[in-house]
């Protein structure tokens, strides 16, 4: 077939018409968004009060989460963590200045931010990581193939990989929650299993008021109230992932 400039322009014109009639095709390449999460409906969020948390309380939060979710403690680089305490300079590298070191609580809690625009969801080839309509970035451990793209994509180091069978490192198992298996990635799920039962996340309960939890889209929720009153920051906001975990300063 002879191709001419006229033919090329015809095809180009038709394609442009196609995009304009069905603009959703333009978004066909990214499955990161998902409905809800940003607009109407529930969007779960957390506000961590950095002034109220001390080492003991943080330890209790970590213990509450890790014990009910069968998260093993492995004394090496292969350790698994869903929630952990970290120094400010690691969490807020862009906001660090030398006097910040003078505040008594140099550490605070870090966990998956359940981002509104999660890079981990975008890169997951099997959709094992996906965003629920209520904004929770979920892991479907059944589908994870262990490619670890999500670990590379998450700018917060929120994910851990099971290099070995985690059961070998668990002293006690909670029979009501599965363990994971070798070769899958895991992270905090905002206690989706508890939220669906109408309970609050385990770490929020353990924090005794130092972590606020609620619906970001509801102006009367606990989180919104406290965000109105206090100054808050988020981790690496410039990256555009839109974290749902806020830190009250």
């Amino acid at each position, binding site marked *: 077939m002879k191709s001419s400039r006229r033919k090329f322009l015809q095809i180009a014109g038709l394609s442009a018409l196609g995009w304009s009639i069905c603009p959703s095709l333009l978004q066909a390449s990214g499955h990161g968004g998902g409905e809800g999460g940003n607009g109407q409906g529930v969007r779960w969020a957390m506000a961590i009060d950095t002034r109220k948390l001390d080492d003991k309380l943080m330890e209790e939060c970590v213990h509450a989460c890790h014990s009910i979710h069968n998260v093993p403690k492995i004394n090496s680089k292969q350790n698994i963590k869903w929630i952990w305490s970290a120094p400010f300079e690691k969490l807020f590298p862009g906001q660090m200045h030398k006097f910040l070191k003078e505040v008594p609580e140099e550490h605070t809690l870090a966990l998956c931010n359940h981002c509104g625009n999660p890079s981990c969801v975008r890169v997951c080839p099997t959709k094992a990581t*996906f965003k629920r309509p209520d904004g929770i970035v979920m892991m479907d451990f*059944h589908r994870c193939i262990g490619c670890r793209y999500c670990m590379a994509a998450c700018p917060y180091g929120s994910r851990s990989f099971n290099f070995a069978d985690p059961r070998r490192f668990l002293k006690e198992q*909670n*029979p*009501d929650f599965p363990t994971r298996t070798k070769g899958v990635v895991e992270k905090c799920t905002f206690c989706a299993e508890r939220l*669906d039962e109408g309970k609050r996340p385990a770490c929020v309960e353990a924090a005794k008021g130092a972590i606020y939890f609620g619906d970001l889209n509801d102006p009367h929720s606990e989180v919104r109230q406290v965000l109105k009153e206090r100054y808050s920051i988020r981790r690496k906001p410039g990256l555009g992932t839109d974290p749902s975990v806020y830190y009250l300063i």
Partner: protein
Amino acid sequence: MYDGGKIIAGLAVFVLLFTFPFWYNIGNAAYTRPKLELPKEAKECVEKTEWMRAEHMQLLNHWRDEVVREGHREYKSMVAGKTFNKSLTKTCMKCHDNKEKFCDRCHNSLAVKPYCWDCHVAPKGEK
């Protein structure tokens, strides 16, 4: 016919190999359905026994997708007229509290190895 003998010998070997599974098992006891230990307290399952026997794997597959991906946790039974929590450990294994004497007996006799138990914890910490 050229090489008739070789062809017939070849055919005989083929037939012999092809039917190997049949005559290899001659004299072995026939398959018997394993005896399962049924729950002592519970009277009814989420569905009828026959249905469960044939379909439990599909049911569990659906449950896991509906729970993990959609957050739908309630199962409305077709026969019992009740609602159950879609959970392997919180519903199934609460009645069938001995995996070895229930699940494993059938699975072993059929040489099926489900990988559910690589993650889900069997009651009483059985392997």
